[in-house]
Structures are given as structure tokens and as C-alpha cells.
């Protein structure tokens, strides 16, 4: 980022000095200390094989925004978006100080860890999306983030004012350098609703750190669907804070780890108000020599009575050499709550295979069908047919590879 507003200058200076002393994110059960997250600029632009067909964005699609190297290169929105602000984070910092200041770098404090600090110091891309009070936007917004000439160091800020609604798909498709660092801060205002889909499809040479944190106010609803389909190593942290009474969050995550890839994914819902509901569902596939870790955390603080924390993590292991962990954590400091968790790691169910094969399906066909079914809850959530079709194709290719 070339220019920072005056109010951010002191923070910038402070983080710059503090940065080297900050710890890496925890990434439980994955050894990440040798991963080179800091190698932001390399001299050569790496040729990348896009996993997703980029034609997807060349079509004359409505309600699509393309952000390439921090610049909006395509934007076509219907009237439904009138009044909402959709602009680059750079522009927002300059022109919308009053909107951005309470949240930017506060929902995810910039000094949370070394990588969030790194994101702040090297920021080169991102959007601010602001939806006005009681504005209900029917069509689904699809934003595509690309790092064409630079590493993708992206920071989004999504603000849904009281009573507003938005459906938003966030796709990360390209980072031409060896790293991607993706932060997203989300505010779901009182009685607002966000349907948030994230698709990460970055190529093998990209090491990804992702940190998303959503703050949900009273009676706000967050429905989040996350497809972790990168081909390189990844640490992904996804936090939801339910800060107002009656707030709820439902998160679904699917991940496919393949080849020698290591993926560490944390999903945490923190209940900071009474009568809040959190539901975490993680489904993963680990194949070849990959390692996949799911950390699911439901945390109910003292006094947050009437809350409900549920989670289920399931991982299918498709080869002898693949590994997977599912760690369900429930941290509960209040009596008057309900909570539940489930975790299972295992091979494809032999009884299911036998059943499908007894109807004439080959082993391969049966496996593919079972895996598809396993990932279905997420795919069905994508509220855009083009994206859904592209995504299904990608999953198919990854499974068959």
C-alpha cells in the first residue's frame, strides 16, 4: 500500500517494530516453523496453472467484481447494489475513514500474530463492502481476487449494517508469487444476515495463510461455506464471535488435501452473549501423502446461558500414506447450555462401497459417488450456478487425480 491515512501511521510504525517479536499462528498438530511466509517478493513471476477456468470471469457476468493486484478490473453490478459501497480497501481507507475506523485492524487485531502483522505491513489488495441499514440485496455478489504480478496480500472488510442482507462469494484464484496472505474482517450488524461463501483455489506453489474473523451482533445470522481447495500448504484460521444476544453462526467447511500438501484448518465459534447458537461442520478428504488437520472449537463464556455449541468433523482418508486429524474442542464455562461434538477419521465405508457395487457400479464409480455425497452439503450452498458448476468440476478433478 503506497499511502496510509494519518490515523494508521502510528499503528504502522508500532507494528513494524513489534513484528519480528510476534509468534506464528498456533496451527495445532502441524509443524509450520520452517514455512516461508515472509518471502513476499521474488524476482520472477511464477507461471501458475489456474485450477479454475478463468473464463468464468471473462463472460459478461452481472454482479461480478474482479480485483487484480489490488485494482478493480471488472465490475458490473445490478441496481440491487445501489447505495452499497463496494470499493478497494485503499480507497476506503482514504475516503471512508468514519466507516472503516472502528473495525479495520480491530476485529482481527493487526498484532494477533506475525502473519496478520505481515498482512498489514504489506497490504496490496482487498475490498471494502458496506451494506446500508435495512438494505436487502437479493442477487449474489461474486468477487474474484487475483495476484497477477504480485503476491496476494489481501485484506477485506465486510460491513453489514443493522437489518441488512447480503450473499457474497469470495474466490481466490491466483497468486503469482510463492505466498498468499488473506485476511477478512466481517461485521454482521443487529438482525443482519450474511451468506458468505469462500473458495480458495490457489496453485501448488503458493503457501497460504488465511485469517477470517466475523463479529455477529444481536440476532444477526452468519451462514458461512468455505471450500479449502488450494494445492499448496496452508494455515487457515476462521473465527466467529457471537457478541449479541440471539446471534447465530453456521459454518460449513470442506477441504481436499492431496499430493504432499499440508493443510491446517481451525474453525472457532466463540459465544460472548447469551442465547447464541454456533454450528460447525467440517468435511475433509485426505489423499496421496497429504496431511489434513481440522481444529473445531466451540467456546461458551461464563454467563452466556441458553447458548448452543455444536460441531462435527469428518475426514475420509483415501490412501495408506495420507494422514488426517480431527480435534473437536468444546470449552464451556456455563451450566445452562447445550453442546455436542462428533469427530471421525476413517477410510471410505466398506459397507457403502459393497452396497453401491452390488448394483453394478465399479469400485471407482462407487467411491466417486460416495465422496461427492460427502462434499455435497457445501456444494449445495453455493448460490450461483456458474460458480457451483465450476466448483463441482474442480472437486471432481481433484478426486480423480
Amino acid at each position: 500500500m503506497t499511502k496510509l491515512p494519518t490515523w494508521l501511521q502510528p499503528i504502522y510504525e508500532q507494528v513494524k517494530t513489534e513484528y519480528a517479536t510476534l509468534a506464528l499462528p498456533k496451527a495445532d498438530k502441524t509443524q509450520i516453523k520452517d514455512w516461508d511466509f515472509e518471502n513476499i517478493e521474488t524476482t520472477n513471476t511464477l507461471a501458475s496453472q489456474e485450477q479454475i477456468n478463468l473464463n468464468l470471469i471473462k463472460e459478461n457476468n452481472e454482479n461480478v467484481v474482479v480485483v487484480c493486484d489490488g485494482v478493480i478490473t471488472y465490475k458490473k453490478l445490478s441496481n440491487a447494489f445501489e447505495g452499497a459501497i463496494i470499493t478497494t480497501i485503499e480507497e476506503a481507507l482514504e475516503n471512508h475513514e468514519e466507516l472503516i475506523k472502528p473495525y479495520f485492524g480491530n476485529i482481527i487485531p493487526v498484532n494477533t500474530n506475525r502473519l496478520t502483522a505481515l498482512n498489514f505491513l504489506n497490504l496490496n489488495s482487498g475490498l471494502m463492502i458496506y451494506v446500508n441499514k435495512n438494505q436487502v440485496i437479493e442477487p449474489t455478489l461474486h468477487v474474484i481476487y487475483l495476484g497477477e504480478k504480485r503476491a496476494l496480500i489481501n485484506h477485506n472488510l465486510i460491513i453489514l449494517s443493522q437489518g441488512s442482507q447480503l450473499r457474497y462469494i469470495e474466490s481466490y484464484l491466483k497468486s503469482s508469487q510463492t505466498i498468499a496472505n488473506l485476511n477478512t474482517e466481517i461485521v454482521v450488524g443487529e438482525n443482519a444476515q450474511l451468506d458468505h461463501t469462500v473458495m480458495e483455489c490457489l496453485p501448488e506453489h503458493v503457501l497460504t495463510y488465511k485469517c477470517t474473523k466475523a463479529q455477529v451482533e444481536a440476532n444477526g445470522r452468519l451462514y458461512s461455506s468455505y471450500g479449502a481447495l488450494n494445492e499448496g500448504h496452508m494455515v487457515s484460521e476462521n473465527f466467529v464471535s457471537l457478541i449479541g444476544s440471539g446471534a447465530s453462526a453456521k459454518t460449513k467447511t470442506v477441504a481436499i488435501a492431496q499430493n504432499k500438501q499440508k493443510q491446517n484448518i481451525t474453525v472457532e465459534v466463540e459465544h460472548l452473549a447469551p442465547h447464541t447458537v454456533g454450528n460447525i461442520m467440517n468435511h475433509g478428504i485426505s489423499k496421496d501423502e497429504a496431511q489434513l488437520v481440522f481444529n473445531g472449537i466451540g467456546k461458551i463464556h461464563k454467563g452466556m446461558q441458553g447458548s448452543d455449541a455444536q460441531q462435527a468433523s469428518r475426514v475420509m482418508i483415501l490412501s495408506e500414506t495420507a494422514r488426517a486429524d480431527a480435534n473437536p474442542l468444546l470449552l464451556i464455562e456455563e451450566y445452562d447450555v447445550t453442546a455436542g461434538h462428533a469427530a471421525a477419521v476413517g477410510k471410505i465405508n466398506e459397507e457403502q462401497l459393497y452396497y453401491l457395487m452390488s448394483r453394478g457400479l465399479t469400485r471407482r464409480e462407487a467411491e466417486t459417488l460416495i465422496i461427492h455425497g460427502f462434499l455435497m452439503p457445501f456444494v449445495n450452498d453455493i448460490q450461483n450456478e456458474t460458480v457451483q458448476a465450476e466448483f463441482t468440476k474442480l472437486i471432481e478433478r481433484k478426486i480423480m487425480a
Partner: protein
Amino acid sequence: MEKPILNISDLKATIEDKEILKGVNLEIKGGEIHAIMGPNGTGKSTLASTVMGHPKYEVTGGTVTLNNENVLEMEVDQRARAGLFLAMQYPAEVSGVTNADFLRTAMQTKTADGKAMPLFKFIRELDKNVSKLEMHQDLPHRYLNEGFSGGEKKRNEILQMLMLKPKIAILDEIDSGLDVDALRIVGEAVNSMRNENFGCLLITHYQRLLDYIEPDFVHIMMQGRIVKSGGKALMERIDREGYDWIKQELGIEDERVVIDEETRQVASIGTCATKEALNL
């Protein structure tokens, strides 16, 4: 079309090194309906699963052929494509896979050139059979057996049979969990398939089902073998007097070979609420 003949000869099979089938002989031809009766735990379901090729059972002797082709050398899916069908006692649930998708994939594998049946024709056929079995119209869109009642699962097995049109069908305790109406509906469906190119083996320990489907042959299984065969008269005597007279006649004390046929599913559970993980 060649009339199907399933021949089972001196079939022996074990599960976890315990011998269950101790030499079963049976021949089923197109146009015939056979019933195997017998008390619980005598190896009836094992016979069905072994013929279909369940991985848990190991064949230790004997042969199974379908029109002179060696069934025991085939994979499960090859057996199905050769024309065998097993309506299972406990069909698996597969989340995320709709009945319609599954059926269409299964039917596609049946066609020689691997071409899909035209969608319209498929839907018409499916609708027809769903109505015939008096199933819910939303069934094609529901996930395979997930959340189905016992009766719905059984009807779903019969639906698959009607759609896939096998040469030889084995119905393993299709009557358990069915009420009287459902029993009649399933019976009618099986009867509708009766013809020279379809042979059927019913496995049951009640006579009820046989009120609706009249078998041509009745076999009694005990101790992993067929110990007695006959016709309608045999069936009626069992209905009246039970199995004890057969045991006496043959000098059998304990007719069982299987004590517990329930299957278990294994899943590993991760660590739970480990506060240490968060340094608490």
C-alpha cells in the same frame, strides 16, 4: 435371451475363520421362485451375501455359476452386471447421494455401450415404479436410505430391483419390518416380474410373505446346509408345526451356526475438550 440358471454347488464359506456354510446345493432357473426358510442363525443371510460377494465372507469350497460363468471369480460389481441382484436386509445409508442419481448411475452401467438411458424415459420409469410401490413422490430426491424407515428401505430395495431388472434376484428377509399393506405391495411387485427370464430366491423365516408370493420350491436351512426341500405342502406343515419335527426327523439338536450376525462400524474418535490444546 438365454434362460438364466444360477447353480450353487457344495458351497462352503467362513466369516472370521468360522465356517457358516457347510456345503449348500441349490439351482434356480428363470421362471422359478424358491424360498429358503429356517430359524434364525442357520446361515440363510450368509448364503445371500456370499453369492453376492460381500468382502467379509470367504469362500472355502464349492462353486457358484450363472449360466456356466464362474460367479466366485467376479468382483461384486461384475456379479451385478452379470444379472445378480441382492435385496439386502440392512441396506447401507449414503448421505449426499440422491436415490435418483444413484439409480441412474447404476442403470447406466447395465447398458452395454455405457450410454445413459434418456433422462425422460428414466424419469417415467422411475415414477411408474414409485407409484407401483406406493412410495412417497419425493423419494428420488432424498439421500440414499438416509432417514428411511425400515419399511421404506425395504421398498427401496424392491424399487431398485424393478428398475435394474436382474436375471436372478435374492431377497434377504424383505418381509421383516413390513406391515401387511407393504407386504402385499412388495408381493405384487415381485409377482409382476415373474417370467421365464427371471428367477428369484426368497429368504424368510415367516410364512407371511409366502401368502403373497407363492414359491415353486421351498428349502429348509439348518446348520449351514439345506436339509430339506419340497413344495407347498412342506411350507404349510412348517406354518402349522414349526421346525421341531424336522430337527427330530434329522436328529439335529442345535440348528444354529451363527450366533450374532450384526455388523459393527468402526470409527476413531479424536481428542475431546483438551483444554491444554488452547493453553487454558
